[in-house]
């Protein structure tokens, strides 16, 4: 008798290979959802012997001196204002976490750094990251051992900032190049090349008065707003050690 039964192995679900592909796909979806924390933690372990030591000391010390000087001036002014107003946010240095940069993408499409401190060390999403010179960015994602920081230069970064000389607030937007753009929504805003930009005392995302950069050029061609290019004080392509400031400032 002729057997007309379908050969069972012809169905796709009977093929081992299809299930292997499905399994790989599920695993990768898991990796995607967990934002690659497996890979980042694995990278933490294999890059550990190569973490930077004490080199670039001179560059860092010079930047720290500059930062301290600017910070001191800012704090003096802030103190006077505080005496008058008595109701400003205060930043504390008690909960700072020191971390090493273990992976950096400071050019190209992606502008981020990965640090060797993660949720295990108490780093939280939204924490502020500073380096010698000033603000670098904010923690966007954490894994157990690592945390990823969106740099100020990233197109994803948008922060409220403060122009110290004219005492006005602006928006610092990353454009994907080395100099983010400062947007002031007023055509008459008083800014000059060389003005100092710091984190805004009114910002709910950052502690106040963290040095950010200096205005390098101003574009006044737009009708309703003024934009300026900001030269950042902290240089993420050189920095190996950073400070993570906790969220509860």
């Amino acid at each position: 008798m002729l057997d007309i039964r379908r050969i069972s192995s012809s169905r796709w679900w009977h093929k081992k290979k299809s299930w292997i592909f499905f399994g790989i796909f599920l695993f990768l979806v898991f990796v995607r959802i967990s934002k690659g924390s497996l890979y980042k933690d694995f990278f933490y372990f294999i890059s550990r012997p190569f973490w930077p030591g004490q080199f670039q000391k001179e560059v860092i010390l010079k930047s720290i001196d500059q930062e301290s000087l600017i910070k001191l001036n800012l704090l003096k002014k802030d103190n006077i204002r505080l005496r008058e107003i008595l109701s400003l946010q205060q930043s504390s240095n008690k909960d700072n976490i020191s971390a090493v940069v273990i992976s950096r993408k400071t050019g190209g499409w992606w502008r981020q750094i990965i640090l060797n401190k993660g949720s295990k060390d108490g780093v939280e999403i939204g924490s502020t990251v500073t380096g010698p010179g000033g603000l670098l960015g904010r923690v966007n994602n954490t894994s157990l051992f690592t945390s990823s920081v969106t740099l100020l230069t990233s197109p994803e970064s948008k922060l409220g900032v403060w122009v110290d000389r004219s005492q006005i607030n602006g928006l610092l937007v990353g454009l994907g190049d080395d100099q983010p753009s400062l947007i002031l929504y007023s055509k008459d805003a008083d800014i000059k090349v060389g003005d100092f930009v710091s984190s805004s005392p009114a910002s709910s995302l950052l502690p106040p008065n963290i040095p950010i950069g200096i205005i390098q050029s101003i574009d006044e061609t737009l009708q309703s707003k003024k934009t300026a290019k900001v030269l950042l004080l902290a240089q993420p392509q050189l920095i190996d050690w950073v400070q993570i400031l906790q969220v509860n400032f």
Partner: protein
Amino acid sequence: MNKFLTKKLSIISFIFIPIIFLWHPSWLGFLDVQPYWPLFWLLPWSMINGSINGLIFGLFLGLILDSLTLDNNFTQIPGLIFCGFLFGRIKLNSDIFVGHFRYGLICSFGSFLCGTFYFLQILLRNFSDSNSLMFIPSLKNILAEVFLTGFFAPFICSQLLRMFKFSRGKL
């Protein structure tokens, strides 16, 4: 164990792509831009295993690399899927010398496609802002990436292709 490693050489090398992507060595870059690493693996893989395999692994690579970058709004998947499919249509060339240069050209083209897809996403998202300032850095990124990918492809792709062929021969 050795036999397993030899057989699965291509899959094992696949695992290291995200590690190199994270490593991002600055001394290898040009204008602070890196070559587009996933294409070096995807080209030989697709050439040997065909378009469908190329497409699937393009998707897999995209999923992993997207998870490592912080941009939640932009994805590398369309570019890599397209490249995987396209690379699968390319026949292997017996002439070694021509083959080497071909890898460079193909990878450059692939990198240009991926870069353009990524740039288009950034443009579409920022369409309302009409931020023309984004054009110059994006163009710089694409061109530097195309140059670097094309420069390194002949060295890396030919070695990977030889490795994959060798591991396939052992199956």
